[in-house]
């Protein structure tokens, strides 16, 4: 079916780079008069996608993976950087050029309930992209829609039905058919199965694989955990707070993850064989706000392998954990702004709204044997917070406990074969490697 619309020469080009993303940034807000800082949803990301492959993009919700996907199909404007598609920089396209290019890249959305307009028949929905581009004649468009319905495993009689009359899996098939209508080369699949029943998920994944083979498609498969992507993806990229943490072949990532964040994600997948490195790593706290990301490594506030400053070698793991938690509390406080009354009170020295910081200190450090060179700084910081100057407390803690991870952004290091890259200071020769550190620290606690 549809042999006429396939382009055989593409097969010859398999493995060639289709998309090359360089230093891509997408920031929201900021610049305006009222907003102090912008949300850095995607903050300098570079990678490439080969023709015909499936690249998995994994990360927690809010890490910027969806924004990245939407930027690749020009649903969002890039703030900085370039996306070259088959040699053309698509971030600068506009008007008719953009519309023509749009035929090449389409998207399958996450929520099949929201991705189809309920007031249109399935036939109209799938035909709309063709209509918008004046594709061939009206009759040929209808023929094409019927072909597509069969391709995605629906029946031709469904043409006049409304989405309302379909199940979630069927609706997602309609969404896929719509995305395929214009014969795109590249599809962004934004968590295409996460809203579906487990029994249906496998079917949709199989369908996507079959379609990829049939139409020589290139996929960017977005998912929120590593479990889903293993079967369908050739390569996997892991994102955290707008930054790419690790990218490599799927098997290399599963078998030999180098980045501490990837390690912690992997440890969350239940393992059938309890091997040496299968200690479960639970990440403390929540990701920081993308409005105010850490100065150094994005992952530094939660990293289980964080590099500690030279002077504090003697401090044990539990105390370090407590210090990091305390720093997070202070950081949160420093983000809140004081009311005028509180500011006046601070001037007069009668400020008391933050006195509860003492309880936090007791909670965190009470049971621990804290060395004096640590505890004196903690007390100084707590004092500053009580005075209503959490920003100063934050600076004080930074000056005291900042290590390499807090101070500067890591580089994207090549590690291992197959363009395996990882974003971490620990790949530099000055520092101990990730694996032994994590093993030591997780077994200690």
């Amino acid at each position, binding site marked *: 079916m549809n042999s006429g619309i396939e382009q055989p020469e593409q097969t010859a080009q398999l493995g060639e780079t289709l998309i090359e993303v360089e230093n891509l940034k997408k920031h929201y807000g900021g610049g305006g008069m009222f907003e102090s800082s912008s949300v850095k949803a995607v903050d300098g990301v570079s990678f490439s996608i080969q023709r015909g492959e499936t690249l998995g993009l994994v990360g927690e919700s809010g890490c910027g993976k969806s924004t990245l996907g939407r930027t690749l199909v*020009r649903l969002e404007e890039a703030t900085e950087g370039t996306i070259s598609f088959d040699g053309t920089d698509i971030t600068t396209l506009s008007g008719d050029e953009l519309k023509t290019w749009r035929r090449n890249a389409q998207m399958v959305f996450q*929520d099949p309930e929201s*991705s189809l*307009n309920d007031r249109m028949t399935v036939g109209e929905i799938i035909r709309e*992209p063709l209509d918008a581009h004046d594709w061939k004649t009206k009759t040929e468009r209808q*023929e094409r829609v*019927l072909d597509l319905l069969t391709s995605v495993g629906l029946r031709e009689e469904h043409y*006049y039905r409304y989405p309302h009359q379909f199940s979630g899996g069927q609706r997602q098939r309609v969404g896929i058919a*719509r995305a395929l209508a214009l014969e795109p080369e590249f599809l962004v699949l934004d968590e295409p199965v996460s809203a579906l029943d487990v029994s249906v998920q496998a079917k949709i994944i199989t369908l996507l694989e079959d379609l990829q083979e049939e139409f020589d498609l290139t996929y960017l498969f977005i998912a929120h955990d590593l479990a889903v992507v293993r079967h369908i993806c050739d390569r996997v990229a892991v994102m955290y707070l707008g930054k790419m943490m690790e990218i490599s072949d799927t098997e290399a990532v599963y078998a030999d993850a180098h980045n501490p964040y990837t390690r912690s994600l992997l440890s969350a997948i239940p393992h059938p064989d309890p091997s040496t490195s299968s200690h479960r790593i639970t990440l403390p706290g929540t990701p920081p706000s993308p409005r105010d990301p850490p100065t150094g490594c994005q992952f530094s506030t939660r990293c289980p392998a964080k590099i500690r400053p030279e002077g504090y070698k003697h401090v044990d793991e539990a105390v370090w954990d407590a210090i990091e938690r305390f720093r997070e509390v202070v950081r949160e406080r420093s983000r809140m702004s004081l009311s005028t009354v509180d500011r006046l009170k601070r001037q007069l020295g009668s400020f008391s709204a933050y006195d509860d910081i003492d309880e936090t200190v007791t909670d965190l450090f009470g049971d621990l044997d804290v060395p004096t060179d640590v505890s004196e700084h903690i007390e100084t910081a707590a004092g500053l917070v009580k005075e209503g100057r959490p920003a100063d407390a934050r600076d004080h803690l930074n000056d005291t406990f900042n290590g390499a991870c807090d101070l500067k952004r890591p580089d994207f290091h090549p590690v291992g074969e197959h363009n395996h890259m990882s974003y971490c200071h620990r790949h530099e020769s000055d520092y101990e490697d990730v694996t032994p550190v994590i093993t030591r620290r997780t077994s200690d606690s």
Partner: protein
Amino acid sequence: MSDTTATTTREELTGFERVPLRTRIVESPRPFLQWLAGLFALVAVEFGTYATLAFAMVERAFVGVTALVELLVGAVSGSATSTVLDIQAAGSTFLTGLTEWAGSLPTLFGRETIPNQGYMLGPNGPWKGTFLGLEPALAWALRLTLIVVYALFVSYWLFRGWKIYRDHYRQADWTPTDDMVGRLRGHRWGQFGILVLLLYLSMAIFGPALGPTTVEQNIQSSYSHEIKYYDTEAESVETVFVGEANFNSKSKGSGENVGPMTYDNYDRFHPFGTLSNGRDLFTFLMGGARITMIVAGMAIGIATLIAAILSMVSAYYAGSIDLGILTTADGIVSVPRLILLIMVSAVFANHWLGNILDGGFILALVFAFTTWPLLWRAVRGPALQVAQEEWVDAARSFGQRPRTIMRKHMLPYIVGYLLVYASMTTGGIIISLSALSFLGNGLGISAPTPAWGRAVSLGQSYVATSSWHISLLSGLVIVVLVTGLNALGDGIRDAIDPETESAEAEEAAAGGGA
């Protein structure tokens, strides 16, 4: 499934859509032709009424447009204006002629076919000049009933047209509209609203035939018409000017009163009694219905259109465009509507614009101008919600034009909300319009064109007397319409929003279980 069946299905499927509606009708014309014949007959029996209305509207529009042209041309050269004015006069005369011709056509339920105005030949009848010699009250009631039944039947016939389309000519066996209609079917309160709206629309269209007398004869030029009546004192049939008869039929409290459902001394029947100036209240109110419906309809129509476009623009583009519209809307809302109406009425008092529709046109514009921000605010929320849906993103991702996205992917979801808020807001417009006429003094619809508010105000000083009917009945006419519009709004809301219904059902189920 074998190959052959697959191909037939395919041909059937695509063939079906390729065929335009007209061809589909030609292929099986029976149901459509039957319906069309019915519609034709229904229109034919009242053709005169519709034609009069249409010609009168064209004439008004023509005068309005030429007046605008005159204004523009006048700015360039003074001599050309007289040419324009000549054209205006000629066109207007021609169209008025047409209107009069259409008015003279007999209609099945017209006053000529079923006359109710007549006089007694002796102290106890018989009646002369009325339909079949019936007494005027019965003749009038018969005509009124027939017209109402006819109007409701026409409405049903139009609805039936949709049903015939659905059953015989639509491709999809089910669409979301079906469910809405279905839900409205079980909604008594909403149906009451529809009924009220239909009744008032009938009043606006058939008003001249509904009253026991006409606005022209009884109100506007009462001294150019004469009527006959049986004078009990002189014991003979006499002739009198309508104006004079009115003068002696005033309702001014206990001494002089012609109450509802009574005859006056001139053999005239007054279903709602007379006004304080002796004119027939029912005729007056029917006359008011037309101007009220036109002004309110025009105002809400324009306001809804503006609100629909701007709410979609705000939701789709958001950001500074949304903020700009918000500021404008807030600015307009902050102007007190009544003061604006009074100011505009004063400014345009002697301007041609202020004379269109007896001042109703400019009022409609002001109402539209002050109402759209309210509607926009109410619909912006739903519009924003729709703009967040992924199907809008999907349409953007394949390069659909913004205008098409708004029309195809957003409008269908907000049109229901628009209808709900529009029907509820119309009540407010009608009340404001009546309030203006109530205040009088050059505000509102200019006298002698009937306006509901003026009837209320005329009866104001007699509320506690036997002439209570003037204010009370006029007030009721307003209240019933406003209530009906709110009921209609409720009905539409429940019809488009099945979630509330199912939530209630769930609650009920949970309550039953507990």
